[in-house]
């Protein structure tokens, strides 16, 4: 009964088709113009190369994109993820050594393994802080009935302030080696961050596809009123999405602060909210909510970072990078417009049918 559409059409209608096309196009460009891009070497027993960089760099964005996908699918948006990253990072830094913020301590008394707090507690506090931020957003949106963009704007602005309060207004350098493991460590030659993404992705996927939460999210995004009439608490569904998004942003904050060895309230996770929204859009989830694909959003994040690393490889200066990204955004938006879709579909269908007659 089902799946009776032609194979080509089915592939094209798959949600991850277009993000994969975008990724492939960028990789093909690399293959032609920068053959070194794909070279993977081994340094100190770890894999090393542009592709590994792409994965390692995009890990925080992938995590945020996973959370953002759920929020956007409910018809909302979370602008505060960047600020939540900063809060999570600040939380980690301050717990590693609470004295750092208040007193000027010379480097020599800081030993590499010194900490006032056990690592598990640091991680827990990081994640807890982010989840709490998500809870705040979720309550404002679902119970306070504030428009998502406005509700999360509050924390977007206030969050960086909170992060600075936590670190007492200073950029805190982290000296604790075990903490670096999340952003710089390797397991079996691959960066630890990739494993973290894999675990979170799997967890999220099970949560939305093996329980009814995913369907409820899509129903709320599609028609919140009808969903309510069907006996589903749209409020709790929205709350869940924001809490999970905060949780994902917190993990991203953990990895980012670990990667750069510092917590900076102003710059940790800067513009991540916009990149995450872009990743979700590239993944084909509509901003108005409804159908979503976590995998497509993750590929969307990969597209953004592959593009960025590619620009670096081509020697595009850092200050021209944003302009380059703007081109990417423009192309994506145009490709995803109804008009372009119809045009491409017509093109492919005609070719397909010609193919059919010749066979």
């Amino acid at each position, binding site marked *: 009964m089902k799946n009776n559409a032609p194979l080509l059409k089915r592939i094209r209608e798959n949600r991850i088709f277009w993000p994969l096309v975008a990724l492939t196009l960028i990789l093909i460009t690399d293959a032609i113009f920068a053959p070194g891009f794909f070279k993977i070497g081994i340094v100190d027993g770890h894999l090393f190369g542009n592709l590994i960089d792409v994965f390692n760099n995009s890990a925080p964005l992938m995590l945020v994109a996973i959370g953002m996908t759920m929020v956007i699918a409910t018809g909302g948006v979370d602008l505060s993820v960047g600020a939540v990253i900063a809060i999570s990072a600040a939380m980690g830094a301050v717990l590693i050594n609470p004295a750092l913020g208040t007193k000027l301590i010379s480097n020599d008394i800081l030993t590499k393994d010194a900490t006032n707090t056990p690592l598990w507690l640091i991680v827990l506090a990081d994640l807890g802080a982010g989840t709490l931020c998500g809870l705040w957003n979720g309550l404002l949106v679902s119970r306070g009935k504030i428009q998502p963009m406005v509700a999360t704007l509050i924390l977007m602005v206030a969050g960086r302030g909170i992060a600075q309060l936590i670190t007492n207004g200073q950029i805190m350098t982290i000296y604790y080696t075990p903490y670096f493991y999340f952003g710089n460590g390797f397991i079996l030659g691959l960066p630890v961050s990739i494993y973290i993404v894999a675990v979170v992705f799997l967890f999220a996927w099970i949560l939305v596809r093996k*329980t009814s939460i995913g369907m409820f999210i*899509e129903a709320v995004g*599609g028609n919140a009123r009808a969903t309510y009439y069907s006996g589903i608490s749209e409020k709790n569904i929205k709350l869940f999405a924001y809490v999970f998004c905060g949780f994902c942003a917190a993990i991203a904050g953990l990895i980012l602060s670990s990667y750069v060895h510092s917590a900076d309230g102003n710059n940790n996770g800067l513009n991540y909210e916009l990149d995450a929204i872009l990743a979700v859009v590239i993944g084909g989830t509509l901003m108005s909510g409804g159908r979503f694909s976590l995998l497509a959003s993750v590929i969307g994040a990969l597209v953004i970072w592959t593009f960025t690393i590619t620009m670096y490889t081509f020697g595009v200066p850092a200050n021209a990078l944003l302009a380059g990204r703007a081109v990417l955004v423009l192309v994506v938006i145009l490709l995803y417009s109804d008009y372009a879709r119809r045009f491409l579909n017509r093109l492919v269908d005609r070719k397909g049918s010609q193919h059919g007659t010749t066979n």
Partner: protein
Amino acid sequence: MTNANDFILTMNSISKTFPGVNALENVDFALRRGEIHALIGENGAGKSTLIKVLTGVEKPDSGSIELDGKPVQVRSPQHSQEIGISTVYQEINLCTNISVAENIMLGYESHRFGAIDWKKMNAFAVQALKRLDIDIDVTQSLGNYSIAIQQMVAIARALEVSSAKILILDEPTSSLDVNEANRLFDLMQKLKGEGLGIIFITHFLDQVYQVSDRITVLRNGKLVGTYGTASLPRVELIAKMLGRSLTDLDKVSKAKSTSEQKGDKERLLEAKGLARAGSLKPFDIELHENEVVGIAGLLGSGRTEMANLLFGIDTPDEGTLTLNGRLINHFSPLGSLENGIALCPEDRKAEGIVGDLTIRENIILALQARNGWFKFLSIQKQYEIADKYILLLGISTPSPDQLVKNLSGGNQQKVILARWLATNPQVLILDEPTRGIDVGAKAEIQKLVIDLAKEGKSCVFISSELEEVLRTSHRIIVLRDRKKAAEYPGDVDDQTIIQTMAGDL
């Protein structure tokens, strides 16, 4: 008799089809110079479509429009204003934060040396309002005035900026009190005296009789007829609005009669003095198993409000609701779902379907809601349930994976029915389940409701079509003015019900 020149506007055999619905079918309409012409019909009768065709919002599939004896093609709302057709909508399309004068002149400001000439503009606005016998400070912001004044400012704008020949008033009195409405009617009479043709859309029949000269009745997208107001008694008007060609007692009635007389009926749901301020006055209702209770009443009589109270969308202020002798304290859709009460809501698009989900997902939505977040029905089970109801209700679709938004109205309605049947409810409330769907599907749904009652369920059947209420119900409750007016056995004649609705009984 009138000669052709009397007509300022004639619309000839206008037809308009939307996917799955004949919104208008060969409708004729003629408006005389200097008359107030009421356009009457229940929801979905085609009033608004006709107005949309006239104002250029929708293009008719066929038919012609003549204005002042000359054929015209109304291209857009803008164009309709240019040729002298002005509309004042129910929701006032003005900005309350800017001045009265600006509202009247918006887009037509007078300029002097490139800047707005406020003096001239204000003088013009005062002039425009004077024509309507209104004397207010036009520099005040519009929000400072009552809804009635705002309404008149809207009319002033309609008349002045486009020098209208035809004025369409779409439910202008719905937010006015009696005095304000009377003031509006005086104004309408004055404009009528000036030779304007006024189309007056309302569902307040009192007002129709108060001001209109002629009445055109639409039903299900068809013209019922145009009558002189003086020669059409109110009871006849209601009968025409609701339609009651009971000539053909088809199989639905037969099905109903066989399901009757089952002896003692178990009482399921009972409301005592249930009320909610501004929504419904205290009413009692008893629902039994094996029974269809029909709810008849005009638009605004409290039909939907009653359904929402029983299903827990709204929380009552007073009164009690008991199910199987157990008092219901907590009102919510989820609570009702767990109690075995189901509601197919009135507005299928806004409250019923989730268009971007598949038929399968739409069908299992309520069942899954009852199961909660973590007891997920397996995909296999989901297909099983979907296939079962697609077969049972005859939903015509190539696959359960079809998106619901691609289905016709009738099939969408069946999907919502399936969603609730899958939860196996004891009490099934159907609010306008047959609205906007074709005749064949209507009969199917009516028959289905009777069959469900036969299986032991208690059904509440709400419809603005009296004919189908009579055909399907074992007991009929008539609502009027947001309260229960009377209760009749199912074999009551339509005349009695119509008189009850009109307040003659």
